[in-house]
């Protein structure tokens, strides 16, 4: 999804911010501010905080139906809903490959990374954001 995240390090999600009231929205959108008390129509792309804390998480043991492109053989993966404090958003994402539910807990700090979602019929890799355990503080911000 073009424009939902940066493709160069440090990776960040890109939402939109209303220039009138300052509220955020993810995925980015245009045309109308989601705040019903605001008449703003000017939503500007905004890079969101790289780090957040896990609000909740799960681990899927069955391959989802299409349009998900499941690996064959299917490998379980974790999902996390992560709260970004400054933006007041909770954003869902797959957790970095290899990090499973047993490795996670509510309140844990994670950061945005990218991984390959699937490789299409022409051999082109499609990328998506993931939540990865945050590097020790002092790491990339």
């Amino acid at each position, binding site marked *: 999804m073009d424009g939902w995240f940066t493709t160069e390090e440090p990776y960040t999600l890109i939402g939109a911010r209303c220039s009138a009231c300052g509220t955020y929205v993810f995925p980015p959108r245009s045309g109308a501010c989601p*705040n019903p008390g605001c008449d703003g129509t000017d939503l500007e792309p905004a890079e969101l905080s790289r780090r957040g804390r896990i609000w909740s998480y*799960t681990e*899927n043991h069955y391959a989802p139906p299409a349009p998900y492109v499941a690996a064959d053989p299917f490998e379980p993966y974790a999902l996390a809903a992560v709260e970004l404090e400054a933006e*007041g958003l909770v954003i869902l*994402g797959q957790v970095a490959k290899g990090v499973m539910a047993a490795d996670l807990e*509510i309140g844990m700090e994670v950061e945005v990374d990218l991984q390959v979602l699937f490789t299409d019929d022409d051999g082109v890799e499609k990328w998506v954001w993931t939540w990865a355990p945050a590097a020790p503080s002092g790491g990339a911000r």
Partner: protein
Amino acid sequence: MSDDRDLVVLGTGMHPWGKWGRNFVEYGLVAAREALADADVAWRDIEFVAGADTIRNGYPGFVSGSTFSQALGWTGAQISSSYAACASGAQALQSARAQLLAGFADVAMVIGADTTPKGFFAPVGGERKEDPDWQRFHLLGATNPSFFALNARRRIDVFGDTPEDFAMVKVKNSKAAVHNPYARFRKEFTLEDFASSPIVSDPLRLLDVCATSDGAAALIVCTPEYAKRKLGTLEGTVRIKAVANTTPTYPQVRLELPDIATDSRAVVAPPALGFKDSIAHNAYEQAGLGPDDISCAEVYDLSTALELDWYENLGLCAEGEGAKLVRDGVTALGGRVPVNASGGLSSFGEAIPAQAIAQVCELTRQLQGRCEGHQVEGASVGLAINQGLFGHGSCTILAT
């Protein structure tokens, strides 16, 4: 409790839930005929037909009001067709209710039926990059059980619930379903059955998550004046006291299907009542009733853990105390306020456009004392609540 906006439920009808893959219209006709017979009303006398749509059965599913009118034989009746995901049936009921309360008609049919494919609910076909339902499947593999599991995990880590508490919901509902001829799964489950049930979305197992089913339900509803002319009295009739179709208030700060993110709380503070709390609140306000008045409830148990959420959203207990109610048997048959005495979605499997109507069928029959084997003794007020994708909440309250 005012009665100036009451309607009467004159008849109820259902096709048993199952998985046969036949044309959904076939199921709907069975439910329609049963409801008409129960109401003792002729099809040609129905003035308004409110259909609840199915989006997985082609054009006839999108125009359900018309589909069932033609199938039963065109009579020139007025119609509507509603889609509101899991709340479609309740929205169809609201459509009929508005017509009847406005005086445009005196008697109406509300009907929904579905045929469902096997497995997880998938979005309808085609590449639709702008559709949030397509996005969450394609980008994240975020199935419906994934969302239920996020809520269940919160219950465990924040409230101290255990997977066994969730299992007790299924055990309770399966016990009631044994006696309900319309339920698809009529086998009693035990806690031991959960150990061998595979994890779907941690911490939820297959037995924690509701299946998808074929099924159909129909109601005949009318104005009190029509009922009085027909029955001679309103004594003993089941009245619709409230139908609330409620959307969220910005900012919606709980992650809800099918959204990838919540609204932002950065600029506007969240409303005092969260979305699911507000669904029940609006119905209580309409009916002039509160949680203490409820004899029994049908709640949308898409997962076992979600049923516990509903106890709290309905005000049957404080937030975080839902598990105690199921542990203490408060919500079981014979308890203070039985919930899902029908067996719930866990025993039916979800037939989307029929499910909210089936909830009202069950409550009506409970209030009429017709639920042998799963009867809530002395039931006088029943509440049905559900929530569909894309911000569709609905709550219906019935009373004798």
